[in-house]
């Protein structure tokens, strides 16, 4: 029995299909496509220096005359499709009209024959602003008397619920009520309460966002590293440009240099399309690194006030939270506090809950989902407060959590049943890995060591449909057509493994063709860790469809019913007999132009299997009967993770050094363990960054650190030594996942910050409440504690 026959490729660390191209420089990313286009125009953008201002006048007359400038785009130009894009919602890459609402927003765009000329043109443009009051602190942005982020007279700011009674900047709210909170707090033996917050952060992927639009008289092709060629780019562009039909718009995605959520909206594509349609030329626009910080989406930070009540045996019986998401200058969107709030109800089984969620806008760069979708922000509160609660109860943090996890098959506060979780196993695994209960070996000097542990959980949002086509070529080789984003996680490889397993053939016989709307079928986008699950299921269905067709063809040829046929190892076998068989390749009839034709399987024409998969839709949590905000299906499945760390805190400088980290991911059934490990390792180091050192710094409403020099993402020196990074895979099959698999690439980022905070408490006796736990903030806490002790 070959390896394939034994288990298929599920659970095997097969080499990535794109590794060779990426290791040799052959792999092409968006900017690498520039040379193949003639007459390329380059776009540069003049951006607002003010966090809030009226645009009084733009004089671009001199710039327009500069030789080499093809066109200048202003927000008032008639071909900007404002009636089809609600102003400054997620499509905020376009030049502003009327008003700028964050420093970094586009004001004027120039397209010229070289970047140098475009930059010179920007210097010739004069913009007159009337500076307006701004608000960047999200707590100051709440309330009916807050400074409005955008002029109320424009009538633009409204979330999906419409204008909100709680204030001009409030975009939405969501309340969750379960049980009897007051009675529960009255009954509680111990009550703890605290407010927590975090800073804005940028995913800071090493590749910048970019687009190239190729103009032809019969249509345009958009090359972009934006996610979701069908669901995001094509769908939105076709809606925005009524003169552009579905047949005239083609979208192609090269390899993406990361995304982590930042590329989930067509940020720069609409502008490039406007310019291409206007000039009838090819257009390229690659953002600069500075623009990636000032003008591409950040996360949405949260302020969370959390209160927990527990019995003295550690059972948590009451939970009350207020959470406010800061969406930045994204003033027209779907945020209402629910996304981040989900982190506060998906891990622990609390019978009485009141959750009050809000989303509010501020005059800072608009937000988009940043890996973890607001759960690192909200669970920063939960996990930290549990540490406080454990101490007050005299219980270990591990014991307290084990006692309160939602078990498989049980309901969370929404009313959803949990279908897959191994969080308890994750927790004990990481506690063992760093020997949590053994005290640290302290050394003389200002560095004090400590250990800490935390957990995280995250929903998968049922984000719509995925499709796949599987082509069985007439030589038996298989080609998978999928539109899946490849931002680095290795989705192509995982899906290829599924195909090879379904057909029981060596994986070298499977090729993945990806991400071209003219060739590959619909997929929404890579978000919320949905690809393995959603697209994986579609791939399985497509394989089964192709196999069904092969079975029918084999049955016809061999004179048996299709259900008696098995397709595997490139052959058709009769069930119950290994005697009569035919090679799949021989199912395809040869033909000659003049004599043989047939309607069945023919050489040169592949069999096409089609798969469509949609996760079950959510059941509305609003409207009659849902006044409590509850529903048996708010989200889809959940992924969990536990993290244990050993750190050192320098009590003189406040610096935190990560010495050792164990991270366990609850993964369903991992398709490719090495790829999963890679996600764990990358995820925890990304989380190390935003937990300890990287975040937006603002001065006078403007981001003061928009560059890799001062936006401190971890380099290799900030990571522990090799032997001190311990990734652990903890499988628990997801019943409706392909082969039981589910996504895991986000939950690992959630517990890192709180685990470090818990370790800081052990080491230095202070409890941080603001993330990132920068050296300055830690030193301030340490000095305040010392002052209190004196």
């Amino acid at each position, binding site marked *: 029995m070959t390896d394939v026959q034994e288990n298929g490729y599920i659970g095997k660390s097969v080499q990535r299909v794109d590794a060779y191209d990426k290791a040799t420089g052959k792999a092409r990313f968006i900017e690498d496509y520039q040379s193949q286009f003639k007459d390329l125009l380059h776009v540069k953008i003049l951006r607002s220096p003010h966090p809030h201002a009226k645009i009084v006048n733009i004089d671009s007359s001199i710039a327009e005359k500069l030789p080499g400038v093809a066109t200048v785009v202003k927000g008032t130009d008639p071909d900007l499709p404002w009636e089809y894009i609600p102003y400054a919602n997620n499509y905020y890459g376009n030049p502003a009209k009327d008003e700028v609402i964050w420093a970094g927003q586009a004001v004027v765009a120039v397209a010229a024959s070289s970047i140098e000329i475009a930059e010179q043109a920007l*210097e010739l443009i004069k913009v007159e602003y009337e500076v307006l009051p701004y608000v960047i602190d999200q707590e100051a942005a709440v309330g009916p008397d807050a400074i409005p982020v955008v002029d109320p007279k424009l009538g633009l700011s409204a979330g999906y619920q419409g204008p909100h009674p709680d204030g001009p900047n409030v975009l939405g709210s969501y309340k969750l009520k379960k049980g009897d909170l007051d009675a529960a707090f009255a009954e509680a033996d111990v009550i703890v309460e605290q407010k927590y917050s975090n800073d804005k952060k940028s995913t800071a992927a090493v590749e910048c966002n970019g687009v190239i639009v190729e103009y032809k008289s019969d249509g345009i092709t958009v090359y972009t590293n934006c996610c979701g060629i069908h669901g995001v780019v094509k769908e939105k562009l076709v809606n925005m440009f009524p003169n552009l039909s579905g047949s005239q718009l083609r979208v192609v995605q090269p390899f993406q240099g990361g995304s982590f959520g930042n590329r989930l909206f067509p940020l720069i594509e609409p502008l490039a399309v406007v310019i291409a349609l206007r000039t009838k030329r090819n257009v390229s626009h690659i953002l600069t690194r500075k623009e990636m910080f000032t003008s591409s989406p950040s996360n949405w930070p949260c302020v969370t006030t959390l209160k927990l009540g527990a019995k003295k045996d550690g059972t948590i019986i009451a939970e009350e939270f207020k959470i406010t998401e800061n969406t930045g200058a994204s003033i027209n969107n779907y945020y209402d506090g629910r996304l981040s709030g989900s982190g506060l109800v998906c891990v622990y089984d609390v019978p009485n809950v009141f959750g009050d969620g809000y989303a509010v806008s501020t005059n800072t760069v608009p937000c988009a989902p940043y890996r973890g979708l607001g759960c690192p922000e909200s669970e920063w509160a939960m996990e930290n407060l549990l540490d406080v609660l454990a101490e007050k109860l005299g219980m270990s943090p591990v014991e307290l959590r084990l006692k309160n996890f939602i078990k498989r098959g049980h309901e969370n506060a929404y009313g959803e049943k949990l279908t897959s979780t191994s969080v308890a196993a994750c927790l004990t695994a990481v506690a063992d890995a760093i020997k949590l209960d053994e005290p640290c070996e302290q050394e003389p000097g200002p560095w004090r060591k400590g250990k800490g542990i935390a957990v995280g959980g995250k929903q998968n949002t049922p984000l719509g449909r995925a499709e796949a086509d599987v082509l069985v070529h007439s030589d038996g080789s298989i080609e998978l057509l999928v539109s899946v984003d490849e931002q680095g996680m290795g989705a192509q490889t995982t899906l290829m493994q599924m195909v090879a397993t379904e057909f029981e053939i060596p994986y070298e016989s499977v090729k993945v063709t990806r991400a071209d709307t003219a060739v590959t079928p619909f997929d929404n986008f890579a978000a919320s860790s949905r690809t393995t699950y959603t697209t994986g299921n579609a791939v399985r269905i497509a394989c089964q469809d192709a196999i069904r067709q092969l079975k029918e063809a084999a049955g016809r040829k061999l004179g048996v019913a299709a259900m008696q046929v098995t397709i595997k190892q490139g052959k058709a076998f009769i069930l119950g007999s290994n005697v009569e068989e035919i090679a799949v390749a021989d199912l395809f009839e040869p033909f000659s132009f003049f004599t043989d034709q047939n309607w069945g399987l023919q050489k040169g024409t592949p069999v096409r299997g089609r798969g469509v998969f949609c996760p079950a839709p959510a059941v509305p949590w609003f409207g009659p009967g849902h006044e409590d905000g509850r529903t048996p299906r708010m989200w889809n499945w959940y992924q969990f993770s536990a993290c244990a760390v050993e750190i050192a805190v320098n009590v003189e400088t406040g610096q935190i050094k990560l010495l050792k980290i164990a991270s366990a991911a609850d993964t369903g059934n991992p398709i490719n363990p090495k790829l999963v490990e890679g996600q764990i390792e990358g995820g925890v180091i990304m989380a190390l960054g935003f937990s300890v050192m990287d975040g937006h710094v603002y001065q006078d409403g403007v981001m*003061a*650190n928009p560059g890799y020099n001062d936006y401190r993402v971890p380099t290799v020196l900030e990571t522990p030594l090799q032997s001190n990074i311990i990734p652990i895979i903890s499988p628990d099959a997801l019943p409706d996942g392909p082969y039981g698999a589910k996504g895991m690439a986000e939950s690992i980022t959630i517990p890192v910050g709180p685990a470090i905070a818990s370790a800081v408490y052990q080491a230095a006796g202070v409890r941080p409440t603001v993330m990132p736990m920068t*050296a300055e903030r830690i030193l301030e806490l340490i000095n305040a504690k010392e002052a209190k002790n004196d």
Partner: protein
Amino acid sequence: MKFDWYYEPTSVNECVEILKEYGSEAKLLAGGTDLVVRLRSRAQKVKALVSLNAMPELSRIQKTEDGLHIGAMTKLMDITKSEMFTGSWMVVKKSAGNVSSMQVRNVATIGGNTCNASPSADTVPGMIASDAIVRIAGTEGERALPLEQFFTGPGKTALKKDEMVVGFKLPDLGPGNGAAYKKYAIRGDSDIAIVGVAARLKLSQDGIIEDARVVLGAVAPTPIRVPSAEQMLIGQVLTDELAAKAAQAASDFCTPITDARATKEYRKEMVRVWTQYVLKEAHSNAQ
């Protein structure tokens, strides 16, 4: 960031004549790791770019009887590998290794790092503590200036329009000297320093401080010496208490700003913390 003229002079004389012609519209290209980045972001415009990369005689390190001569175009990486920075000169070798990353040090030069005149330049405090002299050439001839007088403001030097730095001299300070430099930053060498502290102590046979230099980077418009700290050290034996006092004096003396990297309060506190360590390290290096 187009510039109109590009020169690659092969001698200092040629070079200063070009500088005289263009004045402030010319910029010298050494390694380029600061200049090229500024030109590309259009933070700086230039009419004539004058590359020093065709003048290999500016890259030599030479020991003479009066000290160590370092050519302005000497790469930082070469300084970190040179065996010639003995005794207290070691501080210059080590601090060159604090600049950014390997790739940058392979290209960046000591002259560039100095003339860029960032208050946070890592090579400078150690050199000032070593009483370094800058050798300057112009159309009127050569002159020398103590390095501590070379900086006139953030990004500004005492160079006249037709002048360039050709090298540095680290004088022979005699026996009993020890120096140290600490670059304090969150991400170590990758970051620009939040504070930089250098110190040199000259000890007598019985451990009395005969001479002292305390130099701070990143906490004033230029790198600065702290005369009050130096004076309180001279004639004393270094104790923990004295080091703490000197560090407090250094902290009180500096005038840092709040920026994206740190607040001014934190910088003052870090000066206080690190000056103590640097003094002790310099002291131990002097043994």
